[in-house]
């Protein structure tokens, strides 16, 4: 009886999350002649393998850069002596975490496209970005993704940085440790679970992204989300079972990331408490 008031929520979860997802898992193994791995075999063309490779590479790069840059910026923010600047920068990170998608991608075309504002500025001082660099490519996407990865990292790591105890620093210095030794032997191991769990969040965040990539590069950059979307729209071939198989493999990747995040986040809370 106690669970009865929760039935709308449970129905929603079943109807719009769990059952549809389970149904594509089942149909990915289905064919006219019963259960089969055929869909997976046919789905994994060299082009699709390349899409997975690109997606994993892009996610790993933007997550790694996001974690490193974000952690440094977050540390710079909290070590600023001016409270007003601190709050303003945290607000900036907070707001920009929610930016992304089409308008952001277009903003990057305006500044770094072939006739972009910064492209022209750099040309004037003798640096020619084009044709070596193109915003409509994977390296362009990396820059655009960092626009939402870095602020997200700042928001994720701030509580852990603020949780680093002053006493540890004082104790280490009093016992004769150098600043480097403090960071390497004490602070970094304490922060490691938080850094790693943030990496997982950033990885999943980037792996599932579609709107930014689609606006910026259209079908030019071969990512797995772009491939699945093309199959849904029926642009490639009318074999939607292949999209099921690709989705199942993609979900395995993102859910491993989510589980990695959840288990490490728990450990990180313990390390700091």
């Amino acid at each position, binding site marked *: 009886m106690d669970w009865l008031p929760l039935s709308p929520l449970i129905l929603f*979860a079943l109807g719009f999350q769990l059952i549809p997802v389970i149904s594509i898992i089942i149909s990915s193994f289905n064919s006219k002649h019963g259960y089969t791995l055929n869909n997976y075999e046919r789905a994994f063309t060299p082009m699709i393998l390349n899409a997975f490779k690109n997606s994993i590479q892009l996610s790993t790069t933007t997550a790694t850069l996001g974690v490193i840059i974000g952690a440094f910026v977050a540390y710079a923010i909290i070590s*600023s002596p001016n409270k007003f600047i601190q709050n303003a920068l945290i607000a900036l990170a*907070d707001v920009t975490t929610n930016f992304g998608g089409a308008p952001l*991608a277009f903003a990057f075309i305006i*500044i770094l496209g072939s006739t972009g504002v910064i492209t022209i500025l750099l040309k004037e001082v003798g640096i020619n970005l084009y044709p070596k660099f193109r915003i409509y490519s994977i390296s362009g996407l990396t820059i655009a993704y960092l626009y939402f990865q870095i602020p997200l990292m700042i928001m994720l790591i701030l509580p852990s940085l603020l949780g680093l105890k002053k006493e540890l620093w004082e104790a280490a210095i009093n016992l004769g440790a150098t600043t480097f030794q403090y960071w390497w032997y004490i602070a970094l191991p304490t922060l490691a679970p938080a850094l790693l769990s943030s990496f997982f969040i950033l990885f999943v*965040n980037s792996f599932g992204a579609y709107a930014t990539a689609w606006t910026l590069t259209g079908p030019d950059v071969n990512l797995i989300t772009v491939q699945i979307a093309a199959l849904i729209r029926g642009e490639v071939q009318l074999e939607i079972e292949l999209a099921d198989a690709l989705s199942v493999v993609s979900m395995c990747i993102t859910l491993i990331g989510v589980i990695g995040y959840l288990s490490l986040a728990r450990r990180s809370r313990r390390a700091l408490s």
Partner: protein
Amino acid sequence: MRMHPLLRSTILLIFIAFMIIPVIATMVFSISTRWDRSILPEGLTFEWWQKVTSNPAFKMTLRNSFYLSFGTAIALVLLVTPSAYWAHIRVQKSKAIFEIMSALSFGIPGVILALSLIRFYSNIPIPLVNTPNILLLACMELSFPFMYRPIANALDSINLKTLTEASMSLGGNWIQTLWYVILPNIMPGVLSGFLLVFSTVFAEFTLTNLLVGARFKTFPIYLVEFTRFDGRQASALATISFVVAWIVSLLILWISGRKAVSAGGAVVVH
């Protein structure tokens, strides 16, 4: 343990430049006559703004996006507030459902959510596929953590048990307790959730594009169409998106008193 001031300022200035320049450049681009062959704009004009806003599709897509964002946020408030209250006061165990739903909502990419809904609902006799309704339901799934997290935090921060017992002992039933006692106390959380969902759905492109396509054009769909053939009008539309996102985010910051909007588990999906 402090960072060297010079290093700190350098890092912070580069960070601010990286975050601000794309937005400012888009805004200036939208009021420039031409800005693709000189360092500074060749002149200023409101022509692109006039052109793009006088298009009847502009008002229509803006209205559609507003309806969708508002509808999703209201539906999630109605779904999440009573059940989260019930979970926190009576069935602690069921909090796990909310956590799992939040994790899945983040872990299932938009394209896969769209595929799974199309595949499932085209096989059963409920007329949802290709309607704005399925889009609204998908947006609810997508933005679920943004509603749940602030409400859960608000519920954790008040003395739920005492308030509920006090209300009950005075003869209130569950609905009266929720409406007259709990809701006013968790209002900042509910409002933050509402606004977070609103701004997420207002910027939503993936689900709209794949679930309803041209049948229900929203503002981001309109924007992406323009990026393909008229960059200057598109920049005016992008500016509007940025302004909406900024206003909503600043409102949330103001309501929640500088507390993190996007903390921990409630993570963005792009």
